[in-house]
């Protein structure tokens, strides 16, 4: 596709607009991400990273500004279209794994397909199993989430985010509560899918080591973009720009 995968233009977000306790979180974000980009989103706690990710993921609308996803202006789209666009173009990986606890690993992976395309077929099931094997969980497909370790759950979440092969995956601190070793594994897994399938990743992380391994680092401070560096500059600057 020509043009960027997504484009944010003067995006603002406030909570409680019109009430006495209006909280301004984002103050005019301009950001553009190309297809296949592997980007880290860093910034201090409360700077608005999750909020930005939710806006990009079409989970909530911005207060003002323009957001184009896959060339479509999203502000004017009705609820129904937003849902369809989200289902077809974005995969989510959340910090706390957020798997559906009542469904097994493979059922979690099948869920986006079930929602978007209807009843599960044998082909769907085989594909989901292959995807779980790909993330190293071939022998855990029928486990419930609570029977899996944190790292394993996050692998299921990644397989689920990738199950409909979306052009973009949003990951909010996917390694946030994993030990260093598991965090490295999960990161490597995302990197591998990025390189194999060309899926763009936008990853919120507090870990400078991991951020440094991305193509690009976007830094958010107090609701504004305070830094945006690509590949070459990263290696040297990452440590100092990282805010914890």
């Amino acid at each position, binding site marked *: 596709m020509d043009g960027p995968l997504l484009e944010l233009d003067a995006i603002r977000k406030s909570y409680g607009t019109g009430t006495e306790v209006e909280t301004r979180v984002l103050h005019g974000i301009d950001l553009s991400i190309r297809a296949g980009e592997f980007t880290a989103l860093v910034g201090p706690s409360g700077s608005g990273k999750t909020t930005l990710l939710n806006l990009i993921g079409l989970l909530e609308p911005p207060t003002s500004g323009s957001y184009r996803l896959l060339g479509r202006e999203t502000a004017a789209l009705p609820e*129904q279209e937003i849902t369809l666009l*989200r289902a077809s173009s974005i995969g989510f990986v959340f910090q706390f794994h957020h798997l559906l606890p009542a469904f097994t690993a493979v059922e979690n992976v099948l869920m986006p397909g*079930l*929602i*978007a395309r*209807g*009843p599960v077929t044998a082909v769907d099931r085989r594909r989901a199993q292959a995807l779980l094997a790909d993330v190293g969980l071939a022998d855990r497909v029928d486990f419930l989430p609570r029977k899996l370790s944190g790292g394993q759950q996050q692998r299921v979440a990644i397989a689920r985010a990738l199950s409909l092969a979306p052009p973009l995956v949003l990951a909010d601190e996917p390694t946030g509560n994993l030990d260093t070793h598991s965090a490295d594994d999960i990161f490597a897994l995302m990197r591998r899918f990025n390189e194999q399938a060309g899926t763009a990743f936008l990853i919120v992380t507090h870990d400078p080591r991991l951020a440094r391994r991305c193509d690009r680092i976007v830094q958010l401070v107090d609701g504004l973009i305070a830094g945006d560096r690509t590949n070459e500059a990263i290696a040297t600057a990452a440590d100092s720009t990282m805010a914890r």
Partner: protein
Amino acid sequence: MPFEWVVALRFLREGRFQTALIVVGASVGVAVVIFITTLVTGLQANTIKRVLGAQAHIVVTPRQEVSRPQLAPAAGETLLPRIEARAQRLRSIDQWQALAAELERTPGIGAVSPIVSGAGFALRGDASKAVNLIGVDPARHDRIIHLTDKMIAGRFAVQAGDVVIGRDLAADLGAAVGDRIRLQTAQQGAAVSDAYTVAGLFDLGSRAANRTSVFVGFRTAQSLLDLPGGASEIDVTVDRLFGAEALAQDLAARTGQSFDSWMKTFDQLVAAIHAQDITTALIRLFVILIVALGIASVLVVWVVQKRREIGILRAMGASRGKIQRVFLLQGAIVAIAGSTIGSLLSSLMLFVFLKVARNADGSQIFDLDLSPTLYVTAALVAVAVGLLAAAVPARSAARLDPAQAIRM
């Protein structure tokens, strides 16, 4: 299986305890409604059958004779008339054959039996009893009061000098089948006190009726009561019992004769039945309300507990409509399960009730009449109530902000 079913069933399975709770609630509700309805319907049908078993549903009599003022006031004068009610004599219905034929053609009317009835005396030896002489065509009248089924001795035959009397009158007169009794009326010119043979004894289930009703042939009554060629009354049964009064009024307006329905004659009974109907309806309403509130409150809590999952499902592309349908479906599934269990439960309750509660003589109070329509209606109402109860929680689930739900 489509998304909504997969998720609804899994949620229900996951929340076993809550699911069991509301299924039990719905089952008990359905069972109580079916039980009460069947019981009351059965008891009412039984009561009506007893009361109307020996009774016409509508009785047609000649229009009442009224006195009319004869004098018209002259101009400038005022007249203060004093009109006295006339004594009503025994008369025949005008054109009764034509009227009977017309009634037979009228839709909603079952059997039609013209009769001649009036007061008289039954005499045997020294005994003399005031009775109500009823001249009937036995075949026609049997369709009204089913006397053949109520004979305890002899036959229901009233031709040529035969008479059929009640058990208690027979006892009073000391007469048995085959004995002769005499009948007497006060009518002028009537063939006074002929002797008749008792052909049969009946038991109408009421002592008063058994003591006063005396069935004779149609022509015999005509001559005894001095109504040659006439009929003093037409007895009618109707198809819809509780439509009798409306039908009677309609026919009265059309024919000009006097029509009295059983609903007027037994107005106390009708009032009692209506009161019972209202009570039952209220009980049903409250049971339904309680079950609905129970289902709704459990589902409301459920939605709150499932906020996170709902958020995840929305993030994965489930529309508001899909989420709403998941919870509506849960309500419907619970209702279907509840009405299935409730139907079985109510049948069991009715069975046990009829086993335990019996008449003084040990016979069954009434016949168990399990109506399939009732079960189907109860199931449909249950599903509607389940959907309705789930509507509010389902809406709140659909409106949940996924971004907020996921932050938790």
